[in-house]
């Protein structure tokens, strides 16, 4: 099963390059144009990443992160989650760059092949910044009463967390 991942990237690149060569004129120019946009994306998130990673790093150094993790360990145990991912569970629906910052720290501390590292990665990959996304989408058209959007979205996020943990357990356990 885990081999799928090793094929996914080369196969996608193959498909894109072949269709590009056949159907797009000046394919390399198109590539560099897109890559330049990527530059802007990184430039845009750099300030918030610098602010947030510093904050996370301070939070860790002060010992507050350990206390928070420990305080949430009953919830982690109840859900059979590695307790190191609990801070990420809270931050994920709220802030995109915040969760990248925290994920980066988790991977540095516990390693990418640890249970915590894997669950954290799968969680981040399978959910979105729920609050931000719904605020932006509804805000853009002036809708104030969003009814049951957050209920459904947050239950979906919760489901993503549970399945992430279970899937990592099955694939790598």
């Amino acid at each position: 099963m885990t081999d799928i991942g090793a094929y996914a990237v080369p196969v996608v690149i193959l498909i894109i390059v072949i269709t590009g060569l056949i159907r797009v004129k000046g394919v390399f120019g198109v590539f560099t144009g897109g890559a330049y946009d990527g530059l802007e994306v990184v430039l845009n998130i750099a300030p918030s990443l610098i602010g947030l990673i510093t904050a996370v790093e301070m939070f860790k150094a002060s010992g507050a992160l350990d206390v928070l993790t420990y305080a949430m360990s009953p919830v982690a145990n109840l859900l059979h989650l590695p307790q190191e991912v609990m801070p990420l569970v809270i931050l994920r629906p709220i802030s995109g760059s915040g969760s990248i910052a925290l994920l980066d720290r988790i991977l540095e501390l516990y390693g990418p092949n640890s249970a915590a590292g894997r669950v954290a990665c799968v969680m981040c990959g399978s959910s979105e910044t729920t609050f931000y996304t719904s605020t932006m989408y509804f805000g853009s058209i002036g809708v104030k009463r969003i009814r049951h959007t957050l209920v459904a979205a947050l239950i979906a996020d919760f489901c993503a967390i549970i399945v992430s943990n279970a899937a990592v357990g099955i694939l790598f356990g």
Partner: protein
Amino acid sequence: MLDFIWGGMMLVSVIFGICSGRQAQITEAVFSGSGAAVTLCISLLGTICLWSGLMRIAEKSGITKAISFVLKPVIRLLFPGLQPGGKAAQYICMNVSANLLGLGNAATPFGLEAMKQLQADNPDKTTASNHMITFVVMNTASVQLIPTTIAMLRSKYGSTSPMDIIPAVWAASLCSLLVGVTIARLLNGRCKR
């Protein structure tokens, strides 16, 4: 929201750290943290630029359009009563296929346009319609075929097969999408409008 999280983390760190006599460690963290952030940005830069470039080719060569064509029946199923050939359905398809390819930047404008189209059919302009809720829940559930940023972070910390988590990511995002949309639809039915 982020104001409080960011400010709160810093305040708590400083107070907590001084109370437990860790002021030296905090000072060290201030400088190592900002340095680590720059390292992270530089490693993100390569991956994000490469994929933005590749995905631009995918967009220009019609792959996004092809995927949105395949998605049409699914969209019809999820949004009953929405005109299948209409503008709203078209933008929703483009939004979902851009999301699938991890093109967050391209997906958002399509998504906002889809919301505008849905708003045109909405009888009460300040209250979300059923279709809007389903659509926003789909966007918050994030289904992405290749989680590039995460794979990059894993390889940065020494993983030799950074994409081995892909089946798990697919399973988790598919389940959360199904659950989210199902709940949205169930609650839609409960309070009809």
